[in-house]
């Protein structure tokens, strides 16, 4: 237990060091405004990928409606800040709460479905959410909700990301998380061992949805606008690509893939169709030659870095 705490603590210190480093680089304008935008996007994408990984990678429930929850978060938080004049923090929490409630309400009936039926049902639900938003004049309908102040900055995005990753990592390592993993491995066996599969599936789905809502809130408060066209199922496919590339069931994999793919799409920004062609080829080739993704379900953490930095001895000692 204490070793775990110590590891968490050192990870936290590393995160803060990373934050300070990037912050200094931004203040001294080593990182220009274009890359600042991409760094915020990376943070948002990491939140999305890690939260979807909890649903799809760890619990094994194939969901392609993640953009729908993101949309709910984006709109709800914007309604709180723009229409009700609340603070940004309250907006984000409201967005997360709304997405969580919706995730619960949707998850309870649909998670009885399995495999591809669940996939297509979540895709449909994501689209229903989007079309519903499109038909609400209060939030701008088809032209989107405009005039959202830019509250999101690197600090907000970074710490929201850190909280997401820590929360989901600790959830996975808890007994609840183990129950989720057992559902992925074999649902019938898990049920026979006394795991309440429906409960854990819905819990994973709700948590995943809540963090997608957080990401949505950050997203709309960075780009001044919440527009229904940003949350089509293509966005869900984007997130899915990150999760699959990184490895279903690997948080560090999702993080790496989110960083990698955000850079790729930034580099190919002027050729958006090539970006999708590369994404799609990557998905196909990955599934044929390395279906477990880059990292499989393994994690790379600080241990590896300390092994690289401090020589093999230190790492080996920690392993014992």
């Amino acid at each position, binding site marked *: 237990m204490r070793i775990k705490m110590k590891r968490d603590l050192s990870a936290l210190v590393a995160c803060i060091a990373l934050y300070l480093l990037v912050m200094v680089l931004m203040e001294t304008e080593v990182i220009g405004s274009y890359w600042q935008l991409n760094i915020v996007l990376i943070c948002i994408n990491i939140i999305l990928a890690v939260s979807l990984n909890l649903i799809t990678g760890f619990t094994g429930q194939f969901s392609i409606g993640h953009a729908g929850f993101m949309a709910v978060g984006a709109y709800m938080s914007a309604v709180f800040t723009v229409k009700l004049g609340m603070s940004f923090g309250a907006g984000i929490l409201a967005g997360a709460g709304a997405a969580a409630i919706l995730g619960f309400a949707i998850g309870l009936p649909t998670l009885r479905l399995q495999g591809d039926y669940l996939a297509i049902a979540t895709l449909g639900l994501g689209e229903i959410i989007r079309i519903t938003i499109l038909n609400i004049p209060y939030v701008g309908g088809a032209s989107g909700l405009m005039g959202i102040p830019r509250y999101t900055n690197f600090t907000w995005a970074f710490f929201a990301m850190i909280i997401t990753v820590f929360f989901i990592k600790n959830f996975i390592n808890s007994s609840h998380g183990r129950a989720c993993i057992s559902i992925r491995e074999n649902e*019938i066996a898990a049920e026979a061992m006394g795991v309440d599969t429906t409960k854990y599936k819905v819990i994973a789905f709700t948590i995943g949805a809540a963090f997608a809502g957080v990401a949505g809130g950050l997203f709309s408060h960075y780009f001044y606008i919440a527009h229904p066209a940003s949350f089509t199922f293509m966005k869900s496919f984007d997130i899915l690509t990150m999760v699959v590339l990184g490895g279903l069931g690997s948080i560090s994999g999702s993080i790496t893939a989110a960083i990698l793919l955000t850079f790729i799409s930034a580099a190919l920004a002027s050729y958006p169709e090539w970006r999708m062609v590369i994404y799609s080829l990557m998905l196909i080739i990955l599934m044929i030659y390395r279906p477990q993704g880059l990292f499989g379900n393994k994690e790379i953490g600080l241990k590896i870095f300390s092994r690289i930095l401090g020589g093999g001895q230190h790492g080996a000692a920690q392993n014992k």
Partner: protein
Amino acid sequence: MDSSSLTQQFFQQLINGVSLGSIYALIALGYTMVYGIIRLINFAHGDIYMLGAYAGYFATTYFKMSFFPALIFSMVVAAIVGMLIERLAYRPLRGAPKIAILITAIGVSLLLEYGGIILVTPQPRTFPELFSTTTFNFMGMIVNSQQIVILGISLALMFILTYVVNKTKVGKAMRAVSFDTDAARLMGINVDRIISFTFAIGSSLAAAAGILVGIYYNSIDPLMGIMPGLKAFVAAVLGGIGVIPGAMVGGILLGVIEALVSGFLSSTFRDAAAFIILIVILLFKPSGLFGKNIREKV
């Protein structure tokens, strides 16, 4: 609005719905056949339909073909592409976990869509007018010749398909593979070839649907397959996935429901209607209208 014009509008939407629905039915047949045989939701199927429409477009504008040769040409092209996709993307994954195959299918679909954008530019193209449009006024309801052609061709293709599946040797083999792949293999059926054949038939039907839509709406673009593809899948689920008559009925039913929703409620809810039907069906009768209930084996 008095009641007589309301009934008139109802029947008008019914006619529109049936012609749109027969297109969904043609696409849904491909979904259902492929699902019946290898339990895969072939996400790329909607894009094969787009490809068929483009093949028809090029055949008619550049090779100056008339309607029937163009139809055959695009069906053949789509059949070849369908078989290639199966051979290159799905066959290496036979026996892999379902999720891997599903992700591959999504990948193939994205590849066709955005590869298409690169090849033929994202601008919509005007589909040439292959028939002179005549409109018939039938008791106050308007039916145009294109709707009749769509319905006629769809019914003819469905009839041919039913004949092939039920009366020929290859059809018998298809039914056998779909019923029990391993037993079929033991009986000396070349399972890979039958799967290939199924993809070819399904893809050619989708291509026919693509040309018919081109004629109907006069406009095609590389992303046109996404929504009809998803809706045709809904149609297949509605009729009972894996059941061929189910896909036909499901497609026409879905077309009619959509037409009624857009006629009487609001056209923006049209797309939502299909997905709501999907979710209701999946929750209450996942085997569909015509499907048999199969218990999942442990």
